[in-house]
């Protein structure tokens, strides 16, 4: 989806961005949400905006509902292994993907369902992969942590923390090597920042001026470890990029429009040959690290605070407040999502399991 109608504004220096965010956080109540971003006012009244804005809502709701269905089916034993849910972080994936073009490469971490769906991966095949079925994206060989759809240039789903960053650097190199203005984006969490591959890839991308967008989803916990316990230097990461000469911004990861705006700015610069960019989104997962985790290491009050900013509450409220949608529009989207997810579960339940004879398929090209 192109978003040419969003005129990229001047990218604000990271520290200015941080100050803005603090104001936003202070003003963050449901009533005030319509006032959060001027870009919202511009975009909401642009021609043809309504369908696109509704689609952002639909995608976020699709991810939320898909993840809830995953949890249900994990409890039923239809999904096994490690299952990491993305609930709470939807605005990040949806805001990011809405700015990318089909030729861009997307590489992500193991909490990958939301990115896959926002990238337009088939819901049935994504769910079937979690069910371990032959009709799954990876024919049942990858599972939750390893979703791939090469036709969408969605290049995984990677489960070694930080291991996906060099891969994305190589994909971005292939874009410039071929003389295109396509880019690669790599998602990673706050936990990956302490891996060597993070620093190595930042350096390589800067030295080679690669069109690689580093997108940090800072949800404040690496599994059960709060950032402050495992990292020297506080809970902000974006200033680190400056030491590699990479421009960086901080964005409210609960605000899909703000994510879109900073993405459009960063991607525009990268397509023009500006080299790598870095975006840190502050966000929160409402559930545990995986289905095995009751999240006892954090306070309920912290979760409650973040849920106040839930994009699936604040964004539809904004749409209603701005007259971009009426309640029946939202209800229609939710109904369509419920049908889509139910159909994906039925598709998965009805799909054949792979045969043990296929163990050796696709080991080699």
């Amino acid at each position: 989806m192109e978003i040419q109608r969003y005129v990229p504004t001047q990218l604000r220096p990271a520290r200015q961005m941080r100050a803005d965010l603090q104001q936003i956080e202070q003003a963050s109540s449901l009533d005030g949400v319509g006032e959060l971003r001027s870009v919202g006012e511009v975009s909401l009244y642009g021609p043809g905006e309504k369908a696109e804005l509704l689609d952002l809502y639909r995608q976020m709701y699709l991810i939320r509902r898909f993840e809830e269905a995953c949890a249900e089916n994990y409890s039923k034993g239809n999904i096994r292994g490690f299952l990491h849910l993305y609930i709470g972080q939807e605005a990040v994936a949806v805001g990011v993907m809405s700015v990318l073009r089909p030729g861009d490469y997307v590489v992500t971490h193991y909490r990958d369902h939301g990115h896959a769906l926002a990238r337009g991966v088939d819901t049935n095949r994504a769910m079937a992969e979690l069910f371990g079925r032959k009709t799954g994206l990876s024919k049942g060989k990858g599972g939750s942590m390893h979703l791939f759809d090469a036709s969408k240039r969605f290049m995984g789903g990677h489960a070694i923390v930080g291991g996906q960053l060099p891969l994305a650097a190589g994909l971005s190199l292939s874009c410039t090597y071929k003389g295109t203005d396509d880019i690669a984006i790599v998602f990673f969490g706050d936990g990956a920042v302490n891996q060597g591959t993070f620093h190595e890839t930042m350096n390589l991308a800067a030295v080679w001026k690669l069109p690689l967008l580093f997108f940090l989803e800072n949800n404040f916990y690496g599994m059960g470890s709060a950032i402050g316990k495992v990292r020297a230097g506080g809970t902000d990461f974006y200033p680190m990029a400056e030491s590699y000469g990479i421009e960086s911004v901080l964005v409210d990861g609960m605000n899909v429009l703000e994510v879109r705006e900073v993405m459009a700015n960063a991607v525009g610069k990268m397509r023009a040959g500006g080299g790598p960019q870095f975006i840190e989104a502050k966000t929160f997962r409402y559930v545990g690290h995986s289905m095995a985790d009751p999240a006892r290491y954090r306070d309920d009050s912290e979760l409650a605070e973040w849920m106040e900013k839930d994009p699936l509450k604040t964004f539809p409220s904004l749409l209603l407040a701005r007259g971009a949608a009426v309640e029946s529009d939202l209800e229609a989207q939710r109904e369509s999502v419920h049908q889509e997810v139910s159909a994906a579960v039925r598709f998965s339940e009805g799909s054949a399991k792979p045969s043990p004879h296929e163990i050796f398929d696709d080991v080699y090209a």
Partner: protein
Amino acid sequence: MPTLTIREAIRLGLDEALETDPSVFLMGEDIGTYGGAYAVTAGLLEKYGPDRVRDTPISEAAFIGAGVGAAAGGLRPIVELMSMSFALVGFDQIVNMAANLRYMSGGQIKAPMVIRAPTGAGMQLAATHSQSFETWLAEVPGLRVVAPSTPYDALGLLRSSIKEDNPVIYAESAGLYGASGETPAEYYEVPIGSAKVCRSGDDATLISYGHGMPILYESAEILAARGVSAEVIDLRSLSPIDTGVLVDSVQKTGRVLALDTARRSGGIMAEVTATLQEQTSDWLDGPVVRIGAKCAPWPYNREMEQGSLPDAQDVTGMLSATYDL
């Protein structure tokens, strides 16, 4: 027929690939301006420029992984490691990324790349620079592993490796870069997965690869002087192993010795000898014989290092002891 060293044969193969295939590019530490730690890539930067002969930071995980990504993006990168021992720093990228990518994507993605690395002991580089991890990597599904011991095979295997659609570990015996031999001027390839009978014989089968081959040739000469006719086989490919050629030979000779210049324990020759025990036990005159380097870190001191490596006396001695040859 031109005579080339292994170093020159590899350089020729790289040059030829850069010349003929625009999707091929090289990257590694000091392969450009410096010309490569072992001078394999000397002159290629000047000929093809910095986009295709890329000097990297000392950052193995990043540039091995970037090679995988570039391959997944449709290019054919050839990545040079300064030492096979340095593969450890990027092991996650080789195993979890290069080797697993195709499988865990259900066959959607391929990673056609070559990782070249000098390997093996013998140059007094001590524990961290002398290891032969091609034997570890040979166990990993999704990878191909080759190891030439002659200029002919170096060029022929490099051509096949660059055309291969899977990631290939191309292990270059560091002690053999200067070894010379005849290399045909006309184009040829050596297929991955094909062992080579280098010397025919009837009394015993001797198997090795890379730096072990000169030891086997010397052993075969000693045995010939005793009237024992040894068949000498170069594996050339550690993954897949050309089991058929090995089995045929052992069924003929009834005796087998496999030599590894890597550590004996858990080495590739453990796999080779176990397979032969399974498949040729009815033909064997005695137990399979496996020799290799001592199971200790590589020492620096020359006498200690040479003492750790197997030699022709070990080969002939073990054949005498086991098969009374």
